[in-house]
């Protein structure tokens, strides 16, 4: 590209990156506060109230506390792996933000097959988790790491297959085009309710949240693969869980709920509202349902979710033929 193109393109790129990072950072702190408050209300009690009005500054206090703690490394642990894996996990959680459009004008980059790229980046993290578990040097993290790697087997296929239904209806892998076709027709939630349900369940499995939080099972293995990390490494791991939750809810919104489609207010507002609605759904399901055992999870995924997603593809073909005709 010529110098002229660069001069036009660069400021826009820098401005939108800064804007997205700003929205995301503030939102990350608000999600953690929001989760703790909602869980407290579901438990019929008051949650954080002391630091700041309504407890808004609690996460900053937690962050400072984590920074000043001592970094403990077990004797038998591999030093390099122990130091490197938390930043890598956080990195793989935050990278898809470069590909997700927040509205029709605010996006960092828009390649041709952005949906494929996002799904591919999201699936690297179980490898880092396995590495973190093995390199920690005691029995509980090893078990947790292997369980995380095993769980990846059960959610990858339904995730991609149910997203394929959306791709068939809109005809492209590009996230902006998918949203544009939803704005013109209806939201894909009404055309593909089964796909929505399967995509949501697989997202919960990918995030390792309850009811599928087997790698981090608190009651059997003290904290699974996260046991031996302390201070800022633990902060990065905890942050990465919420980053992935944000990215997954953004994907659900873009694919099924029409992205930034809405009547009067600006588009970014509708996008963030829908993302937070899905996050509320994640929190609600976490508080209510119980954890499954490993073999029951595999049975659920391979016996029920995969056939249902194939059925979903069949129904999509029928719909497309009917709409086309």
């Amino acid at each position: 590209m010529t110098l002229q193109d660069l001069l036009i393109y660069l400021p826009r790129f820098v401005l939108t990156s800064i804007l997205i990072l700003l929205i995301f950072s503030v939102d990350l702190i608000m999600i953690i506060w929001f989760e703790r408050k909602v869980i407290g209300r579901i438990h019929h009690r008051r949650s954080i109230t002391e630091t700041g009005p309504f407890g808004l500054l609690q996460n900053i206090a937690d962050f400072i506390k984590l920074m000043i703690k001592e970094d403990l490394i077990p004797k038998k642990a591999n030093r390099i792996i122990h130091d490197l894996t938390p930043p890598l996990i956080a990195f793989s959680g935050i990278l898809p933000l470069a590909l997700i459009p927040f509205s029709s004008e605010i996006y960092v980059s828009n390649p041709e097959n952005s949906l494929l790229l996002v799904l591919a980046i999201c699936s690297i993290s179980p490898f880092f988790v396995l590495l973190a578990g093995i390199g920690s040097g005691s029995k509980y993290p090893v078990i947790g790491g292997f369980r995380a790697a095993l769980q990846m087997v059960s959610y990858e296929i339904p995730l991609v297959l149910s997203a394929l239904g959306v791709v068939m209806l809109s005809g492209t892998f590009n996230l902006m085009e998918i949203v544009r076709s939803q704005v013109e027709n209806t939201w894909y939630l009404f055309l593909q309710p089964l796909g929505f349900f399967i995509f949501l369940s697989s997202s919960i499995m990918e995030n390792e949240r309850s009811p599928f939080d087997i790698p981090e099972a608190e009651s059997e293995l003290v904290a699974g693969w996260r046991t031996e990390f302390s201070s800022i490494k633990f902060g990065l791991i905890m942050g990465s869980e919420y980053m992935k939750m944000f990215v997954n809810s953004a994907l659900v919104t873009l694919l099924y709920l029409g992205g930034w489609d809405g009547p009067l207010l600006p588009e970014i507002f509708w996008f963030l509202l829908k993302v937070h609605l899905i996050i509320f759904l994640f929190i609600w399901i976490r508080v209510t349902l119980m954890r499954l055992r490993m073999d029951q999870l595999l049975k659920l995924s391979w016996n029920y979710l995969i056939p249902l997603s194939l059925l979903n593809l069949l129904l999509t073909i029928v719909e497309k033929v009917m709409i086309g005709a």
Partner: protein
Amino acid sequence: MLSPLRRTIAYVFRRPFTVMIPRETLELPDGYRGIHEINTDTCIGCGLCGKICPNKAIDYVFPEGKNPYDPKNFRLRRPAIDLGHCMFCALCEEVCPTNSIKLTKEFQLYGKKRIDLIRLPYELESRKEKRKEYSRDERAKMLISTELISRISPEVKQIEEKWRKVTISYYNGEISEEEYKSAIAKIESEYLEKLREVGIL
């Protein structure tokens, strides 16, 4: 699967069950078993509360100027309570024949040193205008003849033996008052030094 979700979300719309304690308070019922109050006038020094206490947290102190080891003075003794060993079972309140010892609704137990938890009967007096305050050193000196401190540290027992010999010989008339006072002052300073070393004072 849907009804658990429905039940949990219904709690969001109800008033929380929490009581924010420094700003709101909870009311304690009557009959709550807290810290003791003793009426030193109606107490007759019978010794039943000390006998019935399962943890042996009650022992007796004598007023100033009376011989603790003379059996004729037993009706002058009053109970001193070690709140660290007490389990607030209220058996002493049940067994007292004159209803002089009662358990109140006060429950804050705090102090910086171990000696703060051993309370003299004149500090636990139920008539508030007659209540006396003691400093830590004075309290320790009044408790030298009881079991409450020598139970915590057995090395104090040897000092108590010396104190007992001097006191008995003074009240028998064997030594004069100046000798008694100087000997007692020496023993008491050694005793306070020992308590500071062990950590009670």
